[in-house]
């Protein structure tokens, strides 16, 4: 889909500037009265893992113009409840994150999440059946002129799953092009004592909601469902790239929840904005009906699969970006400018070019820890 700059913005440009000959102030910041006291609803993020550790994050809705991280909901009493059955408490660590021990939920029973918040309100998700997630058959990838496309394949022999959701974690190697031989300490140059790491690992969790269903198929098979794609130039494909795909079986109800959430919040600011709608989920406040809660708590197992893609496996003619293109070529700092330049710690000397000065670059060009971690992930080969 082509994207155009949002219509209101363009109109504003047109009318304020052009037609009315630069009349000031057509666009004013505006916070409607309804937003002055934003609702402070409980947000429940997570799921009941039917074969493993359940981790639930509690937070609160907050003002749309806030810059801070969401306020976490600490010191709540959280438990998984089996319908007409036992209660399994969750422990809080760190604040706002509640974790269970490794559990196996009975697929013949229904479960819910029960929350007693610090302020004495009780919340519970609706009782949901346990769904067993079929294993991921494979995570495959293919290349084309457009780039790389990563796909997932799975199936359920029993035709019970039908509704699927995925998320993923990506990790990739970051190797700076420039390595400093010097460092500037106390107004003098000396050979570098602690070299910058040669390699780091970038990491990102998926933010998109990825869904598919097989209800229109005669068999419960997901074939080549596209999860992630990259243009042929992407810097993440420069060295070694890895993706961990997690698969969740969904009920029809939960599937619809995620589908709505996706439509509602993933497209903002285009000419073709869809109409927003109100969606909450399946968590209700038991003590106060007017109090809403966000989030959907389902019960299912997780299946995951990791793959690696190395640069050598990709077509040779791909002009993959280094990610450090702006660092080349480095600047030359003349002798008389050395103090002024290198006292500023974001400028890094590389080495001396005798008679001219020092080659220099920015900290981001040499310290890959600004883009990832230098601790090698345990799964990295």
């Amino acid at each position, binding site marked *: 889909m*082509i994207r155009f700059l949002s219509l209101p913005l363009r109109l504003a440009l047109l009318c304020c500037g052009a037609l009315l000959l630069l009349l000031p102030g057509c666009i004013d910041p505006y916070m409607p009265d309804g937003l002055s006291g934003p609702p402070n609803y409980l947000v429940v993020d997570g799921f009941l893992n039917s074969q493993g550790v359940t981790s639930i994050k509690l937070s609160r809705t907050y003002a749309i113009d806030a810059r801070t991280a969401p306020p976490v909901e600490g010191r709540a009493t959280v438990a998984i409840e089996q319908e007409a059955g036992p209660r399994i408490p969750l422990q809080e660590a760190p604040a706002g994150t509640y974790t269970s021990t490794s559990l196996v939920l009975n697929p013949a029973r229904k479960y819910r999440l029960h929350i007693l918040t610090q302020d004495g309100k009780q919340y519970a998700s609706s009782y949901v059946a346990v769904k067993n997630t079929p294993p991921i058959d494979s995570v495959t990838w293919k290349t084309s002129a457009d780039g790389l496309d990563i796909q997932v394949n799975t199936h359920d022999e029993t035709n019970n799953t039908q509704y699927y959701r995925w998320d993923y974690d990506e990790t990739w190697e970051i190797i700076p092009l420039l390595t400093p031989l010097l460092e500037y300490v106390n107004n003098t140059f000396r050979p570098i004592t602690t070299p910058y790491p040669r390699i780091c690992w970038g990491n990102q969790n998926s933010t998109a909601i990825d869904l598919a269903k097989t209800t229109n198929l005669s068999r419960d098979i997901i074939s080549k469902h596209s999860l992630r794609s990259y243009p042929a130039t992407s810097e993440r494909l420069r060295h070694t790239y890895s993706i961990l795909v997690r698969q969740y079986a969904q009920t029809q109800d939960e599937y619809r929840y995620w589908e*709505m959430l996706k439509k509602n919040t993933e497209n903002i600011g285009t000419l073709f904005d869809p*109409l927003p709608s109100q969606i909450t989920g399946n968590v209700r406040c038991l003590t106060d009906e007017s109090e809403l809660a*966000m989030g959907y708590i389902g019960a299912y197992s997780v299946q995951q699969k990791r793959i690696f893609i190395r640069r050598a496996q990709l077509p040779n003619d791909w002009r993959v970006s280094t990610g450090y293109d702006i660092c080349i070529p480095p600047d030359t700092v003349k002798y008389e400018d050395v103090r002024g330049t290198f006292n500023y710690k974001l400028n890094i000397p590389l080495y001396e070019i005798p008679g001219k000065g020092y080659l220099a670059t920015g900290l981001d060009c040499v310290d890959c820890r600004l883009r990832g971690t230098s601790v090698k992930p345990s799964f990295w080969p």
Partner: protein
Amino acid sequence: MKPLYTVAFLLFLSLCALTGHGQQPDKLVTGDFVRVPFEQFASQLEAQTASRIYFDPAVVDSLLVTLQVQQQPLRSVLQQALQNTALRFAIDADNHVFITKGTAIDTGLMPGFFQQATSDNTMATRPDEEQTTTQAEGRSRYVSAAEYKVYELGTGGADGGKVTLAGHIRDQKSGEPVIGATIYSESPSIGTSTDQFGYYSLTLPTGRYDLKVRGLGIKNTKRQVILRGNAKLEIEVEEDITPLKEVVIEAEKDKNVSGMQMGLDKLDIKTMRQVPTAFGETDILRVVLTLPGVKSVGESSTGLNVRGGATDQNLILFNDATIYNPAHLFGFFSAFNPDILQTVELYKSAIPAKYGGRLSSVLEITTREGNKKKFSGSGGIGPLTSRLTLEGPIVKDRSAFIISGRSSYSDWLLRRLNNSSFRNSSAAFYDVTAHISHKIDDKNSVYATGYLSTDRFRLASDTTYRYLNQTASLKWRHNFNNQFYGVLTGAYSHYGYDITSEQNEVNASRLQYAINQTSVRADFSYFPNSRHTIDFGVSSQLYHIAPGSLTPLGAESLITPDVLQKEQAVESALYFSDRIDINQRLSVSLGLRYSLFNALGPSDVYRYASNDSRTENSIIDTVRYASGKVLATYHGPEYRVSARYSLTDNSSVKASYNRTRQYIHQLSNTASVSPTDIWKLSDYNIRPQVGDQYSIGYYRNLKSNTIEASVETYYKTLYDFVDYKSGATLILNHHIETDIVNARGKAYGVEVLVKKLTGKINGWVSYTYSRSLVQVNAGTPSDQINGGNYYPSNFDKPHDFTLIGNYRFSRRFSSSLNFTYSTGRPITLPLAKYYVGNSMRVYYSDRNAYRVPDYLRADLALNIEGSHKVKKLAHSSWTIGVYNLTGRRNPYSIYFKSENGQIKGYKLSIFGQPIPTVTYNFKF
């Protein structure tokens, strides 16, 4: 003056009847009058000449006569005495002198006047011949002469039997027909109004009548007829030349109470001219928006919401051709050049059976026919646009042309600006209208209209929007006889848009949409007798829609072409209506329209599982229809019933019920109408919309018809109109039915309107309380909106107050004030944000649960006319105005943007401060 006329006239008639016709020799007058009061002067003249002088003492009370005469005839004495006054005199054959103000009465009789009693085989007099002979005596005299003549018309009608009088009412100066003028007799109370050709047909018992003529933009007049058989009477009327006079309102004088039609608002171009606008240019849609019951979502939106209906529920007809996008530049201007317009009629309820295809209203825009007598032109120069109109006869009195163009020069302004993003912007539009009318003979006339309007704008350089309306219509009218005529109309409409994006050559693309409509209709009107007016006809229209295509632009573009399959359909209808005047007090109009819609192949139609929400995944089958195969048929009756009951001479009650069906839907997910909106035909998966409206109103005229008041209330139900699922995407959607839902709506309201008809201060005040609610509770819970409860529509603005006031300082200076207040429109707000699934999500309110701030605006305009000399080379006028006098920043749009993890709200006001304008208009 009127009582005098009447007295004088009656006297005159009785004297004529009593005395013989012999001419007596003039007696001479001698006298020396110094500051003698006129009454005394008159009695001396009477004594000397044995004549009788008739006058209204009130008219002459301040007149003192100073005159010295020796042996002079009466005529010359009176001439001298009255030469510097406004008084005129006339002397008849029996030496009766009639003194009148302004215009002398005509003492002559029509040839054949006295034959009434003696001869039965007189041929019908050709009144138009009579008129031309008197024309030499000057315009004002001419009209009154026609008024005081008694026309004996027709022959052979049985005594007291019903005969038909028909003809046209035309403008005396230009020969153009006067549309919607009423012609009626007060006793017995029988009347009709002219149709779009200026044609009328009245069925009356034989006898003598005073026929009064009232109409938009014309001076009130009357004709006295003695009707003896079926006859024709062509009436020429004078244009009301002072453009600042509130003519419209005057025209509706009796109509408000006595007319059959309810929920009809009629505007003529002169009224529209008075309403101040943002860019100084008369804008019909802006004026229509000031009428009670008509709203729009935003300031510069020309999308009309009539009585709680959606913007797509208005049939906009421009000389019988449908217009799909009536706006220029996102709605800053309406797409109709004001110079060529004659009248605009908006039917809000009691929609005539002749019209169909839209639920809420019919907006009928009629152009002028052009001057049939002489070549003339007019134009205007405004801050953003200029316009020019030329018109004239092709064959004098038989055919005329009018051509009118308008163009913007905002591009030129943009280039003057010091900002590169503006210099890269462009906004231009133009429109051209041409109309030709030709009278082949007395029974046949043809009319042709062509219209083209196009817009092109590029905002900050990368995306160019272009859209185009093209229409053509051809009409042939045939009079079978006085009581029966028919019109055959063919029309073609095209609307299309084209958006090109060239930001990045890899993504360069073109998005296109087009709709073509070809229609043929035959309409007949039959006036069998004074109690019945029968209209019937048949129509058929063929639609072709190319619903969207995205194609790459340039060799570098990597866009893959995406073309939606075309849509075709035929919509046909038959209608019949009869207006029955049951008695003096009660009239009813019964109408039935039956419409039939066939969606046609070639098409691939998706079938969906009936128990599931329609999504791409619930498609169970695809059925292929060959070209011309019917893939869906919808049909149904549309009832159009209305009644009027007169309570007293100046008050009445009217009620109406109508059902309408609509087979084409506008899809728009922006709150206001935008050029990217598309029109979609009903098909296998999308049902037609059906609406019912009940309305009742009370109408009363006060202070001898100078103040007109009405209260109308209505209740409307709408079925199966289009609403959108949460998260609907409308553009390039191959299965649009998965994103739209059939909604139910209800709307109700009360409209109060008070119009002051004449005088220095005139105008109207209206207040509307109305609600417009939508319910989507069909289908699965995920398809429902707001839990399946009724929620306010996008244009639900309960309180609405409008004042249009004009104050005339003099014939040359007048001022207009426009004041508008309305409740802010509903909006869906993001209330809070939260994190779920690794990403920020937004919690929205219920759909349309909040409202934007109230809307308030006042505008002021001053009109300055050039001198009113008739014989000037060119007439000119200036309009100076201030739009949004208070500078209030009324929100046009409220939107939210995500900036660095913060979601910020902004209010966009289009007219953020007072906007002065100056426009120069000319006419030659």
